[in-house]
């Protein structure tokens, strides 16, 4: 099951953290911890609503340092197995949590899978992020920078 999402349309990142699995689990599930690492550098996380049950809501908002840019994502938890496995969906949303339409042929929904494993008191974490459509507005400021670039890269390559 964990291998099925490994494709060109998925990111898989493995990391080892110097902390037991319950601490790393808390990084993803406790808003106070989550807010300390998730946002782009300098961004604040005014909202992190994490309802930790299957079907429970997960909504996060990020705000740029000058307050001019606010981005939210919303989704639900698909699997919640404390300290070992967390799966949730994610879609771009407005500040009220309404999913923003992504256009035809675009799922607009992505799936994040976090698997934690104890390795002698440390934690091996494997993240899989699958199914983000290429032209979706992303969850961070990088995408704004790339919107135009992506457009003209195609032109340059062809020309």
């Amino acid at each position, binding site marked *: 099951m964990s291998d099925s999402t490994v494709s*060109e*349309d*998925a*990111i898989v*990142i493995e*990391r080892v*953290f*110097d*902390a037991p699995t319950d*601490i*790393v689990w808390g*990084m993803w599930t406790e808003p106070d*911890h989550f807010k*300390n*690492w*998730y946002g*782009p*550098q300098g961004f604040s996380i005014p909202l992190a609503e994490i309802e930790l049950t299957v079907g429970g809501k997960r909504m996060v908002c990020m705000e740029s340092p000058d307050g001019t840019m606010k981005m939210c994502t919303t989704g639900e938890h698909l699997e919640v197995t404390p300290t070992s496995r967390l799966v949730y969906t994610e879609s771009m949303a407005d500040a009220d949590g309404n999913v923003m339409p992504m256009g035809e042929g675009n799922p607009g929904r992505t799936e994040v899978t976090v698997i934690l494993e104890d390795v002698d008191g440390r934690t091996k*974490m494997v*993240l899989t*992020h699958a199914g*983000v*459509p*290429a032209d*979706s507005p*992303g*969850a*961070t400021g*990088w*995408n704004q*920078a*790339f919107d*135009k*670039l*992506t457009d*003209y*890269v195609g*032109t*340059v*390559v062809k020309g």
Partner: protein
Amino acid sequence: MRSEDDRLSQTFAALANTTRRAILARLAEGEATVNELAEPFNMTLPAISKHIKVLERAGLITQGQKAQYRPCTIDAAPLQEVSTWTEQYRHIWEERFDRMDDYINQLNQKEQDHE
């Protein structure tokens, strides 16, 4: 992998500036001299040259060696690499996990201080 990350970081850093993105956008339409690139900006030639150097180091543009005009041209290869969503998000997640690592180390340090 490391060197690939470094190269990507360099590309991202070069792109994280509106003037440099505007320069690239201009070059996407065709080659241009430094003078031509400087025109739309309210900037001195040395300031523009600095931006061009950054883009050149990131491999995003090349500057001709011949002729006194030394026109700049865009090189799309590094852009292609970061234009896929997987590369963008990989970068985002890697940065997030760097911060998570820092934060966990802070927590570990606090705990040690209490002991």
